[in-house]
């Protein structure tokens, strides 16, 4: 009976590590995309699923991270080792300032203020031509120097895109591991208490706003890291990264996968990216399909994909 559980996460990581050797540029491309977006969606779920805060402006921190890395690397020639963590730190700084005001509001007003701040970020990116490139964005963000990877035995034959994927995978894995530790810690438990019953949490002496603000900052930090990677992956950063529709997209990923489970948002990011890839090859009306999926989800599968799988699994075991 005391069989050790299979370390699925480790198995998954090892499988993902093999993708570059499939030899398809497309697979590596999609896998990189998914890895980055999974981190973005997981960071949002710290607010949405764990703390119970509906942020409608999470793209702001993704955008700030992307611009930070891009500006540092392209304009100032700062190496990736510095520019990448800077994305998280700068995004967290903005999240601290914006969040300070946001956590004072509840429910719909919280959602609206996060949206308003995100639109401010967007407007700055859109108009501040000298620094952000304005409407045109910043194309040709340089790749980090990954020449050292070629020196590692077995990696020499891979393309630079594959090298970047391995880097992204490693960084995202570390970030996700950190997030996982955070939500499983006593601190993470406290966030769940606040989600379930903020009045009661306040009553037993928890500083609810402080906890909410700290979760907001942490979520902003990881969203910023995801943004930093995405700007390089995308070979350019654009004001769209911070637009409100981008915030809606990441919300959809999170809900689709299931916000009640740690891995839900990652599954959502994967499913949505793969679906997008498949459907756009048949029709240009991807948003229409996405809208319909979303409606089916809202009415039919409240727990998202992971929630449905867990429920199904429970039912099968019960038999």
């Amino acid at each position, binding site marked *: 009976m005391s069989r050790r559980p299979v370390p699925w996460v480790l198995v998954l990581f090892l499988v993902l590590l093999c993708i570059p050797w499939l030899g398809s540029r497309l697979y590596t491309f999609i896998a990189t995309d998914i890895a980055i977006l999974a981190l973005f969606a997981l960071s949002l779920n710290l607010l949405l699923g764990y703390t119970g805060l*509906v942020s409608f402006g999470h793209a702001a921190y993704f955008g700030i991270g992307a611009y930070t890395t891009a500006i540092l690397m392209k304009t100032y020639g700062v190496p990736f080792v510095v520019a990448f963590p800077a994305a998280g730190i700068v995004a967290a700084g903005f999240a601290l300032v914006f969040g300070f005001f946001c956590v004072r509001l509840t429910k719909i007003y919280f*959602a609206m203020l996060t949206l308003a701040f995100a639109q401010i970020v967007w407007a700055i990116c859109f*108009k501040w031509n000298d620094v952000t490139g304005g409407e045109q964005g910043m194309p040709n963000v340089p790749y980090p120097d990954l020449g050292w990877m070629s020196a590692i035995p077995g990696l020499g034959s891979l393309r630079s895109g594959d090298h970047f994927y391995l880097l992204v995978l490693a960084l995202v894995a570390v970030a996700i591991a950190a997030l996982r530790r955070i939500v499983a810690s006593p601190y993470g438990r406290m966030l769940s208490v606040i989600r379930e019953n903020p009045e009661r949490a306040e009553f037993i002496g928890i500083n609810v706003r402080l906890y909410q603000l700290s979760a907001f900052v942490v979520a902003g930090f990881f969203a910023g890291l995801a943004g930093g990677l995405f700007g390089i992956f995308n070979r350019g950063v654009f004001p769209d990264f911070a637009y409100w529709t981008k915030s809606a997209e990441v*919300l959809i990923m999170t809900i689709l996968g299931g916000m009640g489970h740690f891995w839900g948002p990652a599954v959502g990011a994967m499913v949505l990216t793969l679906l997008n890839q498949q459907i756009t090859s048949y029709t240009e009306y991807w948003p229409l399909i996405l809208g319909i999926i*979303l409606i089916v989800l*809202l009415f039919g599968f409240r727990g998202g994909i992971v929630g449905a799988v867990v429920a199904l699994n429970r039912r099968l075991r019960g038999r």
Partner: protein
Amino acid sequence: MPEPSFLFGQFLGGLTAAMFLFTIGAGLSLIFGVLRVLNFAHGSFYMFGAYIAWQVMTWLGPGTEYFWLAALGAATGVAVLGVVIERLLLRHLYGREELYQLLFTYALVLILADSVKIIWGTGQLSASRPPSMTGAVQIFGTTVPYYNLFIMLLGPAIALGLWLLMHRTRLGRMIRAAVMDREMLEALGANVGVLYTVMFAVGAFLAGLGGALVTPVKSIVPGMDVEVIVEVFIIVVIGGLGSLWGTFLGAVVFGQVLAFGILIMPRFSIFAVFALMAIILIVRPWGLLGKPLSR
């Protein structure tokens, strides 16, 4: 110092833009006030209004009476669309968390945007002013097209009409009662479900009307939905969600900040209105003229 007549023209331009936004925003604000649903698809209703009006005008041909017919037809068509959406889908989400309602209306944004592309294509369409309003009048040395003058008068007229509806009719009394306490109103035997549908239809009608009336001054393109919803959000948040006069005030403030902001800091006037919205939300989340939510 620029010429006074120039400043006056700028003021009137801002006012015209404000009255367009008020027409649309009044609908959004009404829907939120009663249903407590923040409707992202309101911009899509506006876009549908514009496209339907263009379609009807194309069928009927030029003519002042046809223009008004097209505008009314478009607004009614959008209202019907609103009724269908509310009856079939939205009403099942009233008890759920805000997040689900927000995402539902966002799903509508996606679906309606693509529907427009499927029906009318992605090209840019345009309509002309009703023939009887192509002229202009001189006011304090500024040329003001009759049509702009009409829009500037229409805004207050709509505000007054809605005020009369809310305060001088039985329906209005019931709506206000529903805002105060839905359950009590139900207990008294009122059919609140129908009331909600009516409110959603009225809101959609106003969005459709705004879309139809904007066709002579703006080009009709996919993407006009997402653009307008942001502006309308700003005005209702500044004025106070659910407050009619607040929305009016919000629209006027927005119009003037944009009109004069563009003179002072051309690139960052849009930034100024977002900042204004954020400041209002921070110090007075219920807006300039709104009331704090009871729940």
